[in-house]
Structures are given as C-alpha cells and as structure tokens.
C-alpha cells in the first residue's frame, strides 16, 4: 500500500456545517486541505500513475479555464469530451465538469459514425460544440442557434445509440450530486463516507460510473480507476489501495467472483459494494452476500433518464429475495396496459416519479413525453410491488430461453458479450429448434473486427456449454423500443432470418450437443 495513505488527513468538516459548493469549489477545497494526498489513481498493475489533489486541481483547473474562455454562449454550447483510459483524458473530463458548461461525454470505444451521429444531432438542434481533446479546444458553431437554453452543469447522456437515431438525455443530477445534502443522495444508504478510497468500474461515458465518480470527486475521495477492466486487476486495486467502496455491474461481479476462488482476504477493506445497470442473477447475488456479508452489498435500480431509483440493502434482499428495493425519493406505481394503477402483488408496467415534474428529460422535444402530467414515467420494465412497497422486476419479455430443458437467462450472456472489447452491443435470443426446443442466437454489433471464433472461444471459457450461442451473427443494428429497451420480439425476427452463406455469420457446431 502506498505510504502516502498512512499520513493523517485533517478532519473533514461536519456534514451539517457544509454549504452546497460546486465541483470546482470542492476541488480547490480538497487541494488546499490535502494537497499531497492521492486524488486519482489510474490502476494498471505494474505502472500506476497517481495524481495528488494539488496536481489534479492544477491540471484540471487549466482545462476548466480554457473551456470557460472558449465558451461564448454557455447555454447553447456543449463541451464534447471523450471518456478515455489515460490519466490525461480523465483530468480533461474533470476540467470540463469543473467549467460547469453543458457536457457530452463520448465513448472512446464507439465507432466514429456513432459519435458523429450524436454530434450531428446536437448541431441540428442548434447547439454549438466545443471539442475538448489532447490537442486543445476548438469550436464548431451551429448556424441557427437553438431557442432552448441548456442549464449550466447539465450532462448530456446518449442512450440507445444503436437504435438508429440517438436519444440524448439532459441530466442535471450527475454534476451536482456531491453538492446535495447527504440525505438526498442514495449513497447515504450504502455506507459511503466522504474521503474514502473508491474504485470506479466502467467507462465514464455511462451515467452510473460517472455519477459516483463525480460524487467521489466532490467528497474528496481517492478515486481508483482501472485503465481497462480485468478481474485480477480489480482485485489487486482493491487490495493495494485498501478500497472502501465500489460500484459495479453484475458483469464485473461475475468476472471478479470467478477470478477469486476461495480466498477473499484482499476484499477486507470493502465497506460498500453497489451493483446496478442490469439484473443480477440470484446465485451471483448470493455469492457476493456470502463473500462480503449482507451489510456491505447494495443494489440500485434506475434509469439513465433519471426518473427515479430504488435501493435494496443486502439484508432487505435476503428478507425478500429478488427485490430491487424501495424507492429512494421515488414513488413507484404499477400500471395496467390501459394506464390504471394496479394493487400490490399484481404485475404491470413500472412507473416511477422522482418529483422532477416539468423538467426536460430529452434534448430533442420530439423524443416523447418523458414523464406524464402527474410526474410519473416508465422506461418499459415490468414488475410488481409487495405490501411494503418493495419492487420486484418481472423477467423481461422473452427473457427466459429454454435450451434442451435448461433455462437460460440471456442477460448473463449479453453482459459477458458486452464486456468483451470487440463488442459494442449484443442481444441473445432463442429461435425455434426441433431438437432442443430453442437454440441461442447472439446478434452482435462489433466494435472492431468480426471474428466470431474469438468471441465463441471467449464465451466457451466463461459459460456452460448450453449457454454458448449456436450462432453469433454480426449486425450493425440491434432493435430497441421507444423506451430504450431491447425489442426482443424484433430481435427474434432478425435472428430467425437464415443467411447461411453470409460472411457476417459464424455458425459453430460445438454447442449442439
């Protein structure tokens, strides 16, 4: 463990004495109080660049000043910055966030066409783009500036990028989360402490990792980032830096669990582990509850659209296995297809209301209503409430596939595929099969290359044989519903169309048996 962590930090001021401060002010404050303490750790195992608070403040402050100076019309300018794996890229991102201008964070791994599509969308809506990269900042001006101003500090999050036209959410929570009172933050329920050492897993262009990254920055945490996700690397990072808190997806949890057979001593420092973003299979959840204990494992359900969240502690989950928790400043209603509220116990569409009535959800007004006039909105999940208000999500439509008598949850295979660097997006569906009942087909949008054999090998080493798709078909589009969820019915249709001679298809024979 690095020796600088042994030096004592001056005490943090008591929570109630704090006044809300911007990310910029908070960064200066931490740099003034603990200049030599590690702020940012880019963990890569052998070579681990560390930035202290003084360095982080100075370098990201330079970026922030440049961005402010280059922004002429802050309400109509979007700073565009890529979420990269290098220290400089992260510092740049922090600088842009400190500048308090609207920001779009792009994926460094997304194909150029996808990023270009989002940028064109911004231009068509009349927003100037300020590109912030390693070569400095440069602006592209919209010819007809929008009449609709963007609020300061808004973060634009692109969702459903693979469904054709990008849908951009205007988020006003992410950049301000750290300046909110403790009680208003879900992390308050999850053993989060200001000044802790925090592992951030997942790319910062995703809303969840970015939210906790920003909150950690504001709270003066030591932020440990992995230069790329690797389960062994995650375990060493936790052990080497005595990480107290981490957020992960079920994919990360599964990968770490399989890389950590039997011995969990390296995880002893973890006080809180939050998983979110995808349904967590029950055996995996039980595994982690066993490893860390029920007081340390937390689950959140929510949406990029920011319409509300639920939180479940490990203890709550053990009492009500399968629940995603109760609303956190979020009302939950289950409604019939006709929109009528349903009583506890009945399954229907999940509607959430977080009291953000009247605030814009999507950048483009054409992207639908977001919330109804009563403030409730849905992202298209189905579920039920119990008598105490705990939410249970229903297995999604076509969520369970029966292969030769075995039940397969496509989410498990999809999250594995999504974790592969060569995969941008993937969906797994069942197509009718005479012998097995159903056979698995994976539709995959490749990030680069189209090598089905490599992907198949990757899956074979991580999954039971019956879970490895018989066919991996490369495509440039995965169908999404208006609500941003995979349209599995259409995906089944796409998968059923046989194209035996297509180059884009890899038909294996090893999984038929």
């Amino acid at each position, binding site marked *: 463990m690095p020796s600088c962590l042994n030096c004592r930090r001056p005490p943090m001021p008591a929570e109630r004495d704090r006044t809300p401060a911007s990310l910029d002010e908070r960064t200066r404050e931490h740099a003034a109080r603990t200049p030599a303490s590690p702020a940012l750790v880019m963990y890569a195992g052998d070579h681990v660049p560390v930035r202290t608070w003084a360095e982080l403040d100075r370098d990201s402050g330079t970026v922030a000043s440049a961005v402010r100076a280059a922004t002429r019309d802050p309400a109509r300018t979007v700073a565009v910055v890529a979420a990269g794996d290098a220290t400089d890229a992260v510092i740049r991102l922090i600088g842009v966030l400190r500048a308090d201008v609207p920001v779009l964070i792009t994926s460094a791994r997304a194909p150029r066409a996808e990023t270009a599509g989002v940028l064109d969308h911004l231009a068509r809506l009349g927003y100037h783009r300020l590109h912030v990269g390693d070569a400095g900042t440069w602006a592209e001006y919209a010819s007809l500036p929008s009449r609709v101003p963007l609020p300061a500090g808004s973060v634009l999050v692109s969702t459903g990028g693979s469904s054709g036209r990008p849908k951009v959410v205007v988020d006003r929570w992410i950049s301000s989360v750290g300046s909110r009172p403790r*009680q208003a933050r879900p992390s308050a329920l999850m053993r989060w402490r200001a000044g802790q050492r925090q592992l951030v897993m997942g790319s910062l262009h995703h809303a969840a990792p970015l939210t906790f990254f920003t909150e950690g920055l504001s709270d003066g945490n030591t932020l440990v980032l992995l230069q790329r996700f690797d389960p062994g690397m995650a375990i060493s990072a936790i052990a080497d830096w005595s990480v107290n808190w981490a957020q992960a997806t079920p994919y990360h949890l599964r990968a770490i669990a399989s890389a950590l057979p039997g011995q969990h001593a390296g995880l002893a420092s973890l006080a809180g582990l939050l998983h979110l973003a995808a349904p967590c299979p029950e055996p995996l959840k039980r595994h982690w509850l066993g490893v860390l204990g029920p007081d340390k494992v937390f689950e959140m359900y929510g949406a990029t659209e920011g319409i509300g969240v639920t939180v479940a502690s490990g203890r709550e989950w053990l009492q009500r296995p399968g629940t995603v928790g109760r609303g956190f*400043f979020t009302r939950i209603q289950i409604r019939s297809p006709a929109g*009528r509220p349903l009583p506890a116990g009945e399954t229907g569409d999940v509607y959430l209301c977080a*009291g*953000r*009535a*009247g605030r814009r959800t999507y950048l483009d007004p054409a992207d639908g*209503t977001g919330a109804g*006039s009563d*403030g409730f909105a849905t992202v298209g999940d189905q579920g039920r409430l119990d008598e105490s208000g705990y939410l249970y999500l229903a297995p999604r439509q076509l969520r369970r596939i029966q292969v030769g008598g075995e039940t397969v949850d496509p989410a498990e295979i999809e999250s594995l595929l999504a974790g592969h660097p060569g995969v941008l997006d993937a969906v797994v569906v069942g197509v009718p099969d005479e012998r097995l009942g159903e056979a698995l087909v994976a539709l995959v949008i490749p990030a680069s290359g189209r090598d089905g054999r490599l992907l198949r090998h990757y899956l074979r080493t991580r999954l039971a044989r019956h879970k490895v798709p018989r066919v991996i078909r490369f495509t440039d589009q995965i169908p999404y519903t208006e609500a941003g969820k995979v349209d599995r019915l259409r995906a089944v249709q796409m998968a059923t169309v046989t194209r035996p001679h297509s180059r884009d298809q890899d038909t294996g024979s090893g999984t038929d048996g």
Partner: protein
Amino acid sequence: MGESTRLDAPELGRKLRANRLVRDAEVFVDDDGMITAVLAPQGPRPGPVLRQLVRELADAPDGQLRVAVLPAVPRSPDGTIDRTLALGSPDDIYLFERPATAAESALLGLVQQVLPGVAASVTDSLPTLGADSLVTIELTALIEEAFGTAVLPHEIFAAGSIRELAATLADAAGDPDALT
C-alpha cells in the same frame, strides 16, 4: 357563485386550443355548474401548470373548476366530448382547493417558498408539484422550524397530498384546534 354558469365554454375551449402548451382541448359545464376542461398537452406538461393555465383563462371560482389531463381528448363518433371517458380516472383530474385550516395554510406557504412560481393546491402531492429529493429536504427543515415537529424527508415525499401532510403535522403538534 351562480354567475359562473354564464361561462362561455366553447370560447374557453378555443382559447385553450390556441395556447402553445395545449394540443387539444374541450370544455363542458355540468347541470350543477361544474366546469370541466379536458386537455391534451403539447409535450410533457405538469398537471398543476395546465390547471393554472385554465384558471387564468376561465375567470371562474376555483371550486367550480376541474381540469382533466389526458393523452388525447376523448370524443364520441358525433364529435362531442365523451364525458364519461374524460372523467374516468381520478388520477388524471386536477382540482384547485385553497387551505381550509391554519396548518394547511402554513404548510402551503412553506411549499411556495421552496417551489416558487408553482400554483399549488392542497390536493397536490409534493412530487407532482416538482419536489425532488433536494426540495423535499429543504422543506423538511422549514417544517421542523414552523411546526416544531421532527419529520423525515421520506415521509414528506410519500405524503399523498399537502392536505394529508398538514393533518399529520397538526396531529403530531398535539393540539389540532390550536392550528385551525
């Protein structure tokens, strides 16, 4: 109150349809003088905002006004509004009721402090008015100061309406008569 029956319902309907917040609207008056404005908003519009629009245009007593907000205005085959469908779901109907007790009045005053610019009815719930976690926590502090009662932000957020919350607060204060 009988004066309000002179309201020109078709004219109010025209004014509403001409408003940029409204995609479609119809207005009808019941035998008992109750005016109902049925609105399909243009884009996402909170119910209290649409209700305020109707109040400003209708020039009628609040007690005789109700606003139904629906995705589309339900019409019969002959083109007239389908009143049964329009009033089918209580959740879609917005009334405007003024405070009836001192506790309601005090609480409404606090709500207006944290949500300035929103015309709130005591029948509204806080999330419907746009109170998110941050606003709710601000309101909690104001309530504790004004009522001398410790409340949890989550209880405030979950209360069905300002009226319901005021009753709880008055009860907790011990002497409801002192506040009425």
